[in-house]
């Protein structure tokens, strides 16, 4: 802004960006480096007396060798949850963008509002709903969808359902933003040219909403892969995700080097997948 320019002189931009840049450098980038050095340290140390930096690359091999099932499980659960979010989120975002009329703002507020009931509390209430003697399980048993010994809680289903539920708003908002930009006259034009409803969607609406699809899947998939709250509250020891392991290694086991190595592996995996995906989706300008 020219006005501030005169107050601060030619360096106004740097004065404005400075605090944010400094904070993120010291408390985001620097910690990442610290995580990297910790991951190469000798596990013989302790969090209190410190770890010796010994370039111990074996930490990575050991972490990967022992915990790879958790990594696979995390990617799988997060992947399925992201797909489910995409389907549910697309339906709702489409309805708000094209069909809600004057209720648009109200519906958008309603999408964000559940956020404000603490999400741990909401996740715990799913425990109540899916409980072994709850009416959902009883009903499913009565109609023989679930066997008499069948259960929902403490299964992969419950964990994936929890992930889907918790990250749904992260999918809806970017989808809505890109759907809202689409000129409705485009679909009308397609209809004039004898496109069927399905063709109108697949040839006009869907391609134009790709930036929202990419943004939404990233915002859902990345946090879902690292999440361990759903796996802890709704799952069982057999459904633990990599976040559970990292958390445990840091807090209960105090094995910082292996925990750090596992953290770095997770980060590298995610970055690699995101780059591949963004390139495939052809919207590189997003990053």
């Amino acid at each position, binding site marked *: 802004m020219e006005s501030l320019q005169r107050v601060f002189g030619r360096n106004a*931009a740097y004065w404005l960006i400075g605090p944010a840049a400094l904070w993120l450098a010291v*408390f985001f980038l620097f910690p990442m480096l610290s995580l990297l050095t910790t991951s190469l340290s000798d596990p013989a140390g302790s969090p209190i007396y410190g770890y010796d930096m010994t370039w111990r690359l074996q930490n990575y091999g050991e972490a990967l060798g022992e915990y790879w099932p958790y990594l696979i499980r995390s990617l799988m659960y997060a992947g399925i949850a992201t797909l489910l979010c995409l389907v549910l989120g697309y339906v709702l975002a489409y*309805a708000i963008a094209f069909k809600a009329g004057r209720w648009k703002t109200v519906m958008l507020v309603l999408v964000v509002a559940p956020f404000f009931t603490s999400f741990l509390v909401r996740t715990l209430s799913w425990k109540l709903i899916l409980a072994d003697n709850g009416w959902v399980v009883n009903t499913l048993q009565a109609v023989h969808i679930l066997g008499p010994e069948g259960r929902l809680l403490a299964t992969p289903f419950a964990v994936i359902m929890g992930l889907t539920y918790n990250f749904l708003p992260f999918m809806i908002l970017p989808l809505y933003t890109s759907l809202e930009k689409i000129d409705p006259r485009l679909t009308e034009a397609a209809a004039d040219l004898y496109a069927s409803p399905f063709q109108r969607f697949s040839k006009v609406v869907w391609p134009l909403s790709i930036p929202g699809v990419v943004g939404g899947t990233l915002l859902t998939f990345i946090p879902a892969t690292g999440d361990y709250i759903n796996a802890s509250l709704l799952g069982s020891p057999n459904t633990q995700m990599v976040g559970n392991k990292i958390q445990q290694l840091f807090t209960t086991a105090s094995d910082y080097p292996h925990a750090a190595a596992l953290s770095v592996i997770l980060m590298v995996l995610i970055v690699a997948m995101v780059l591949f995906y963004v390139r495939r989706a052809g919207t590189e300008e997003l990053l």
Partner: protein
Amino acid sequence: MITRLGRWIGKHLPLTLGILVLLYMYIPNFIVALMSFNDSSQSRNLYQFQAFTWDNWLNPCEPQGMCESLRVSISIGLLATLVSTIIGTLAAFALVRHRFEGRSTMNLVLFLPMATPEIVMGSSLLALFVAAGFGGQLGFWTVLIAHIMFCISFVVVTVRSRLAGLDSNLEKAAMDLYANEWQAFWKITFPLVFPGILSAALLAFSLSFDDFIITNLNSGTTVTFPMFVWGSAQRGVPMQVNVIGTLMFLIALTVVIGGEVASRRRAKGKAAAL
């Protein structure tokens, strides 16, 4: 009646499906509100509705440590909101109104925290604090530092989108009418950007108040509200937790709807003035 409903659904299928998804999002909120009236004194089974009572609402602070943790969460939330909103708003102004060297690098650095899983961010901060010798002093301040860090990016994104949609000619017009730079800023730019800053602050507070993963790794013995809920989850959550959840929801809804009504009224007033 049923056939009329059926016809409406047939005509508005996408809208109906959308409303169903929205209802699904509210199932837990409904359960939380219901359980806040649950009388859990009769039985140890905390996962079933026993009997109706007002007690949980009348004695919200009964569970030991819960309101203390609430106080900690609110203090951290308010401080993190204040600092991250100021820092983030300044950065948003720099990014929208200035072309400077390192701008694209800064955009990337601001994007990274949003694209990093919380467990990685939390563990890297812990690694830093321990390596720097602060391992024994984890608590209020380390949590606050972490919260400010992950709120900044969200504030920048929110304010930036508001600022980018602003016509900078308005400011020039003000100056043509003999406003000086400060007047143009405080009378024109700031009031127009303010709703964006306000919603950024609201977002920052709710992110900070709700965070568990990063907080848990960096909090030492300090207990925030999500950590209290987590800790009590093993034994069965006290019903008062549901009261707090419902209350938060109602307060947030009031703030958001209030803001919406106010901006609508202002828009109407402006239309009338024209």
